[in-house]
């Protein structure tokens, strides 16, 4: 254990040193607002495709999905497929038009033909809320994960991990801006792909590259037989609500991705719409292959390590991939096992670090460009002031995230990732699409859509079994880990709000529009021409 810990720490230190070096170099080329927010719009499609993958393939999707395959079998696939298919929304409806008609943030497009201040305030708030939810889930997860992987126990180690991760992400963003953060994503994505590829080939080689053999071995070892290979062990095994929960989750996953602010701002880092489209295509290829590899890694862990040994280390299954690495390297106690485990653990840290940096950048961009420059300063801030505000807000948002994560470290906050997707799907995507496609859409509609979707998604979770864990006739199991109370029955039976909050967000946007007489036909004509032709693009 100590041997492996040393190697892990050394490898991680190398990654940190490398990324700090890159960040400082990038800072020398970061002068203008376009440099800070959009990396000078000079990345190539492959670079941005890797960075999109780096932003997207979080520890939750690497360790979490591999763990879900390992413990619940097939149900891990429901997650990864939703995460992948979602990119088609980004490709067909969002990426090119956003690149053509916006400048730095999502609000640039949503507020284009609306009254600037209220709409930018709303879009900025929902951007920051989504990013902070996602950020908290990642940082709390980082604390728990590092304790697991390094075998340290105790609260001090968790707190230190959160502080170090937070300090590094603040450094990447304030010093390196989008250029530095993008390079961190690229390095991380390459490391993660190499790590996953080696494990995948290794696992497949053990089964003579016969997927059916691997599946059979995983099903046998799980003790659940064929049930392990079909949907339902995790979702919908108990009651009718959990099946609806699955639909609700699927909807939020597929519609949420194209509303995630840290993904949206990446479309501005390339020179033009064609490059934005090409970078999404790269991302689809990279992410698709990655999720296929997690399938093999997860079933490999189920077959080779076994669910019992995995659940003994972490009942959420997050250690499935590292434990599989140890097994492949030669097993516990062997040098090979220690080395490979250390490598995969270091890759997992790199993954967390890159994702939190991307999230911090997204929220500080929106704070500076939308709230500071356009709401507070009414568009009269100079570029220098704007970039200074962005750096300052990265420090503040980072500090707030560190403090909140420390307080939340004992809670099960994994639901925050699904909630971030639900808010993105309910508040951001409907208003973004309506502003690009619906001539009649106006300020009242945008405000109603954003606030309605946001309040619906967050409010429904506050009423859900995540917060109130009481058992009832329709929810016989209840939720012992509920945040507020373990025996009050939840007023809203679904853990995932998307099924209801996405239609609510959309309806609010439509109703708000129709109740207001305001029309913006002239500006819509301009937006449409910009979005589809790229004329006048920044």
């Amino acid at each position, binding site marked *: 254990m100590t041997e492996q810990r040393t190697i892990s720490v050394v490898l991680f230190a190398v990654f940190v040193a490398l990324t700090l070096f890159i960040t400082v170099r990038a800072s020398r080329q970061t002068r*203008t607002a*376009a440099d800070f927010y959009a990396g000078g719009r000079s990345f190539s499609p492959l670079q941005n495709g890797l960075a999109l993958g780096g932003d997207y393939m979080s520890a939750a999707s690497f360790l979490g999905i591999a763990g879900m395959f390992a413990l619940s079998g097939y149900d891990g696939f429901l997650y990864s*497929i939703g995460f992948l298919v979602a990119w088609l929304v980004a490709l067909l409806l969002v990426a090119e038009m956003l690149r053509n008609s916006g400048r730095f943030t999502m609000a640039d497009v949503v507020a284009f033909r609306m009254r600037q201040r209220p709409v930018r305030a709303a879009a900025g708030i929902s951007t920051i809320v989504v990013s902070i939810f996602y950020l908290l889930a990642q940082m709390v997860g980082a604390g728990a994960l590092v304790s697991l992987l390094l075998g340290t126990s105790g609260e001090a180690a968790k707190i230190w991990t959160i502080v170090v991760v937070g300090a590094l992400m603040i450094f990447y963003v304030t010093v390196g801006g989008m250029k530095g953060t993008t390079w961190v994503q690229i390095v991380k994505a390459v490391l993660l792909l190499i790590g996953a590829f080696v494990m995948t080939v290794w696992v497949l080689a053990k089964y003579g590259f016969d*997927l059916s053999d691997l599946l059979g071995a995983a099903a046998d070892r799980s003790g659940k037989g064929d049930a392990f290979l079909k949907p339902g062990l995790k979702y919908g095994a108990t009651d009718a609500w959990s099946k609806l929960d699955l639909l609700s989750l699927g909807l939020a996953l597929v519609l949420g991705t194209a509303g995630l602010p840290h993904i949206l701002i990446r479309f501005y880092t390339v020179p033009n719409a064609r490059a934005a489209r090409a970078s999404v295509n790269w991302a689809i290829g990279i992410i698709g292959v990655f999720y296929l590899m997690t399938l093999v890694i997860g079933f490999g862990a189920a077959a080779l390590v076994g669910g019992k040994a995995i659940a003994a280390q972490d009942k959420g299954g997050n250690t499935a991939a590292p434990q599989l690495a140890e097994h492949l390297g030669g097993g516990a106690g062997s040098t090979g096992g220690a080395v490979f485990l250390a490598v995969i653990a270091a890759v997992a840290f790199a993954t967390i670090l890159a994702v939190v940096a991307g999230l911090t950048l997204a929220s500080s961009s929106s704070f500076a460009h939308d709230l500071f420059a356009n709401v507070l300063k*009414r568009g009269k801030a100079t*570029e220098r002031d704007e970039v200074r505000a962005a750096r300052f807000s990265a420090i503040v948002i980072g500090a707030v995230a560190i403090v909140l994560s420390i307080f939340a470290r004992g809670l099960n906050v994994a639901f925050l990732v699904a909630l971030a997707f639900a808010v993105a799907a309910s508040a951001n995507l409907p208003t973004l699409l309506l502003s690009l496609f619906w001539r009649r859409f106006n300020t009242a509609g945008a405000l109603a859509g954003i606030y309605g979707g946001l309040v619906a998604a967050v409010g429904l979770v506050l009423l859900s079994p995540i917060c109130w864990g009481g058992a009832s006739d329709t929810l016989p199991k209840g939720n012992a880990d509920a945040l507020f109370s373990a025996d009050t029955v939840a007023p809203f039976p679904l853990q995932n709000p998307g099924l209801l909050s996405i239609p609510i967000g959309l309806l609010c946007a439509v109703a708000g529009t129709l109740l207001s007489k305001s029309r913006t036909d002239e500006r819509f004509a301009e937006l449409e021409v910009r979005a*589809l*032709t790229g004329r006048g693009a920044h």
Partner: protein
Amino acid sequence: MTTEPTRPPEPSDRPDPPAADPAALAALDGTPEFQRLRTAFRRFVLPATAAFLVWYLLYVVLSAYARGFMGAKVVGHVNVALVFGLLQFLSTFLIAWAYERYARRTLEPLAAAVGEETP
């Protein structure tokens, strides 16, 4: 109606291009060239979006409510659920490829033709 405030010039070696004239851009909206571009864009994007959403939701609904069917063996330990899932990957890759092709062959030439004489 509010317009974006004008921004100060950027002290950069890679400046953003100067702002285009909004009225001139808006005027292009009514031209036949632009109408053709918009029709061509929507003709691909809207049916493709509807298709992949329905195809994905079918997969999720079957996963929730048709578990017997999803568990049916196809070959060896490979069942319908796995094949269906892999087909989702395949369809995603295919739609992305088809859109790239369509954008290059059809949309980009149409976009280039918009406002040729009045840039």
